[in-house]
């Protein structure tokens, strides 16, 4: 399978192509609770993750909450 290169939280990451966002997030073993994902500047709602294809060059931000003032 061909590899694609994405930018995830500012880091370049080669991943297997033909993947959806839901699968990518689960492969990253992130705590799935209260995460939000942005792809190329747009928030991708959780219900849309499975139908969202990750493509070469995509810029993805995955955020959660930390302590702050």
């Amino acid at each position, binding site marked *: 399978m061909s590899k694609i290169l994405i930018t995830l939280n500012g880091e370049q990451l080669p991943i297997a192509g033909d993947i959806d966002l839901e699968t990518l997030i689960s492969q990253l073993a992130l705590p799935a609770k209260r995460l939000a994902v942005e792809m190329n500047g747009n928030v991708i709602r959780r219900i849309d993750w499975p139908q969202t294809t990750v493509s070469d060059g995509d810029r993805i931000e995955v955020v959660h909450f930390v*302590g702050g*003032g």
Partner: protein
Amino acid sequence: MSDTFQLADTTFSSRLIIGTGKYRSYDEMKAAHIASGAEMVTVAVNRVPLDGSAESFLDHLDPKMKILPNTAGCYDAEHAIRTARLAREALETEWIKLEVIGDPITLLPDNEQTLEAAKVLVKEGFIVLPYFTDDLIMAKKLLDAGCPAVMPLAAPIGSGMGVQNPSNLRIMREQLPNATIIVDAGVGVPSDAAIAMELGADAILMNTAIAEATDAARMATAMNYAVQAGRLAYLSGRMPKRLYASASSPIEGAIK
């Protein structure tokens, strides 16, 4: 005594809003939160670490607390707007503490970018609580943009310097009698919080003053009292300042 604090659709009995940053441990944070009496806490939106070290910070908060996500770390309107949208998606809250910083040394707000972001976010249905420089004209613009409250700084974030410009706060209170004013940032000790409340602030938002105290929970208690004391003093109406003395005891009838 019933002196509730209304903000958007929510009624609070506490006028203290506190942060969740800089605590040395979760236990310490939780104890401080309880001691403070606060009903709303701020949290920051941050990239998830990809090394598997991520943990669910929110699990360490009292479920009764209302969570106010912030846009800390954003240096322009676009990043703040994106951060607010992500916070809404993850937390299912419309509430956002809007913070657009102008430079990393002072962490002073970029008022122009803050206003720009506020306009966009209000249109998108957010309840925007903007952190900004303590300036009356800016406050008016933010209120006109649809912010339900304004959050002027007392001093730079984390500085603990207290209310640096009491005149500005007083002017803001007098000129905007119906606006909700929350003093955000710069409080160091309870007397600072009391001063801000005496000047007519509706509430205080603080983080470092409690989190960096040697005994955070005890300081949180002190801040709780100070905010209440300052509020009561404001409602009571202070005596006028005089240059000269005014005797409290009768002058007539003292023995000679």
